[in-house]
């Protein structure tokens, strides 16, 4: 019996807790999508998509731990890299001469 299958209380295992937490993070990400759709300036949208991508990384990590699939962590690493590059690239391209960082 591995750790993920250990019962915490009332029949709920660690995997159940991680899956419910992943669902909660998904709900929070959907809430942030409102700012990405509405946000008056373009930087608001970039910021909302950046935060949403961070939430996606956490969801991928939680799924990797709950379902016992370590390859999801590789996907999460690549997603975090692309998320950071997206935010930096868009904020550089929107400014004249691109002197952001």
């Amino acid at each position, binding site marked *: 019996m591995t750790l993920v299958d250990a019962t915490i209380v009332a029949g709920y295992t660690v995997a159940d807790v991680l899956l419910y*937490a992943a669902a909660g993070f998904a709900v929070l990400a959907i809430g942030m999508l409102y700012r990405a759709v509405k946000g008056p300036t373009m930087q*608001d949208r970039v910021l909302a998509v950046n935060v949403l991508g961070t939430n996606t990384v956490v969801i991928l990590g939680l799924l990797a731990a709950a379902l016992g699939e370590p390859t999801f962590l590789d996907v999460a690493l690549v997603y975090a890299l692309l998320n950071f590059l997206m935010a930096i690239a868009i904020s550089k391209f929107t400014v004249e001469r691109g002197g952001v960082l």
Partner: protein
Amino acid sequence: MIDAIETVRVGLIVVFVLLGLFFSFVSMVGVLRLPDVYSRAHTASQADTLGAGFGLAAVALTVGWEGAGFKSVLLLFFIFVTNPTAAHGIARAAFEEGIVPWTEGDERR
């Protein structure tokens, strides 16, 4: 049945997951309700980094050091470095584009 050290580990996993959910919720409320892009960048860089850090710490505790735990810790460190950097870049791009910061009495944007 699981022994004592495993009980502590499971308890820490549950506590970290709940703390991560709480701080991500704080970050969502901030991103939705704060009045302009600079204050939103502030909450996105601080609260969301802490929430993601707690969530990934729970993942690292679950998968264990002998498995893919190293990748998970690497991911945690990477998020801690890059998330505030990205928020800083976005806020600076907003400033260079000429967005005036919100002050008290202004209309919410």
